[in-house]
């Protein structure tokens, strides 16, 4: 495989990671804790889309090799992931009288419950969307790029979603309130924003994006109960690289980390013998390096990250 081909794969994988990390960053800054159930929320979205696709079917015509039914199923996945997150917030997180660290630990429990439910329902083995695999796009092969129309669909859909998030945050009333609350919850409350409603919306948005990311991850690889948990580390690395609490940092961080993970095999060409298995390890090392050098990340404003540094 050529470097450019790794890069092309990197863009596809990054698109998925970006969706996950934006969602995590939104929940981190508004709900106020590191949500370790975020990866498994992606899994929930993926399986919901999988079930919905089984029911809806292809519906005949398609876009970029994907039947229109897939996109409808993806919307169902997004909705279910958001719904599950809201229900979890209402019955698990809201009644808790513990700080953000207690919430963090609770979210691990939540993650296990999600995953266990999925495993009980669908078994531990991998599933696939019933969509015929595509051959690489002919026109791009001469340039050394072998990506399928499915890959292209993932990148385009993710781009649409990222632009939508940007528009939401910058140009809508809800977005302004969310930013205000992320900056300073007390001030937001004092200025009359109904913060709990904003928090619920941030769960809808964060988990919905996770659901979309999960659906695409299922299409890109396959569906299995561990799929979300196994990208959680990569997503956390992206969020830390971007600067915890910064949505735009998370976009950039997600893109960079996704690229690096997919391009890891290239390291062996410059004399570092490291296999593709070590993708998450590379993400981890980048994360540790960021924490050492600039704990506030690329986009951090110098106050969010470390204390007393």
């Amino acid at each position: 495989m050529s470097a450019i081909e790794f890069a092309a794969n990197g863009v596809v994988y990054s698109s998925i990671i970006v969706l996950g990390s934006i969602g995590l960053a939104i929940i981190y800054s508004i709900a106020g804790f590191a949500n370790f159930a975020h990866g498994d929320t992606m899994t929930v979205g993926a399986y919901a889309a999988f079930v919905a696709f089984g029911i809806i079917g292809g519906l005949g015509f398609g876009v970029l090799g994907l039947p229109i039914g897939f996109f409808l199923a993806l919307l169902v996945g997004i909705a279910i992931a958001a719904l599950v997150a809201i229900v979890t917030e209402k019955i698990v997180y809201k009644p808790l009288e513990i700080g953000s660290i207690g919430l963090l630990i609770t979210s691990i429990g939540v993650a296990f419950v999600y995953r266990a439910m999925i495993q009980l329902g669908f078994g531990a083995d991998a599933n696939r969307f019933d969509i015929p695999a595509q051959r690489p796009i002919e026109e791009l092969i001469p340039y050394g790029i072998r990506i399928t129309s499915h890959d292209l669909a993932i990148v385009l859909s993710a781009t649409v979603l990222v632009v939508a998030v940007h528009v939401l945050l910058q140009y809508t009333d809800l977005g302004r309130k969310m930013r205000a609350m992320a900056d300073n919850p007390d001030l937001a409350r004092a200025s009359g924003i109904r913060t709990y409603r904003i928090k619920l919306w941030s769960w809808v948005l964060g988990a919905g994006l996770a659901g979309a990311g999960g659906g695409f991850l299922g299409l890109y690889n396959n569906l299995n109960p561990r799929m979300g948990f196994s990208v959680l580390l990569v997503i956390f690395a992206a969020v830390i690289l971007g600067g915890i609490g910064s949505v735009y940092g998370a976009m950039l961080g997600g893109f960079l980390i996704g690229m690096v993970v997919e391009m890891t095999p290239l390291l062996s060409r410059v004399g570092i013998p490291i296999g593709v298995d070590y993708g998450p390890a590379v993400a981890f090392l980048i994360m540790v390096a960021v924490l050492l050098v600039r704990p506030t990340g690329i986009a951090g404003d110098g106050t969010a990250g470390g204390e007393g540094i």
Partner: protein
Amino acid sequence: MGQQAGRESEMSDRFDIGAYWEDFTPIERVLTAALGIVTLLLILFLGTGRLGPSYFLFLFGLGGMYALLSLGLNSQWGFTGLINFSVAAFFGIGAYGAALMTGSNSPIAGGFNPIFGLLIGLLLAGIIAVAIGIPTLRLRADYLAIATLGLAEVIRLFLQNERQWTNGSAGIRGIPSFFEGWPILGEFPRLMPGLEIGIIPGTAIVLETTFWRQLLNVSLMLVFLGAVFFILRRAQRSPWGRLQRTIRADEDLAKALGKNTYRYKMQAFVLGSLIMALAGVFYAHLNLFVNPGDLDPITTFYVWVAVILGGSGSNRGALLGGFVVVAIREGSRFANDIAFIPLDAAPLRLLLIGLLIVLVMRFRPQGLLPPQRELIWPSAVGNKAPSGPDKGVPQSDGGDPNE
């Protein structure tokens, strides 16, 4: 939380059983009764041969191992509020350290005396703990949580993939028992005669070499556990432990009072990691075989459940939690054997662990046995230890510094 501070715990040196019982919280009474019932059941099962004595000792060793892991996590999370999601990794470092030094198919250095394995395992765990602590312990608590989640994954990947050093998923076998090559103890299991005990006619219980070997293992575990428990209890009741608890509640307060909190957090993190590695060393010599599967992340969360269920910051809670977790593990296996639940054991266990975490955090975040009394350096309060909230400041009476 409404704790009765200054309450005498079961650790005190009083022998008045009645007063002792009076002093128990309702939960302590229920737990004591439950422990009594479990003990009776075990005796019954052992006596009727439904539970093999060797297997019982193996399980008991496993329980001790979990208790040890829980004590390790307790000294990080319970004392200081450090979130370590790498329990399985530090356990694995200890287990692999021991296995690589002593195992017969070790690609590195098999055949050494287990003492070397112990030292190497602890040394490795200490180095890795410092390395992960440096970038994260100056930062907010959630950074350590995220970084340790990553560390666990990296260590597991390394052990699985670097076959030239670790044998990969084939694992390392031929690990001797810990006392192999020791005078007397090394030969003890083979020298002991086979005993036959017939409590109920026709169901004789046979005690053979395996039994004696497991008995040695359990003794080793009790030595490890006792030493660690003693050290932690001492540390917890010292100014050091007091400082750690202050950091846990409000790190800024400790900083403002002139304490170098980074250093203390590092000490607690390394201490806990060493204890986890010790549990790993014990496991290698108990199971005589290690593979990367032993580092399954679920182990980490078994230990978390043990600690938060037992009571964060409470050492006896951690002991209790460790044994309860083995009961859950073995219980779910047992439930699977009954087979009227047509469900997989693995996700069921995952569900149970997940629900337990959520429920404990929701309904009893302080755990079953939260620390009950003032924790002041024993020799400073001497025999006039405060035993109730209404007693005054203890007089300094020059008690024996060694308790």
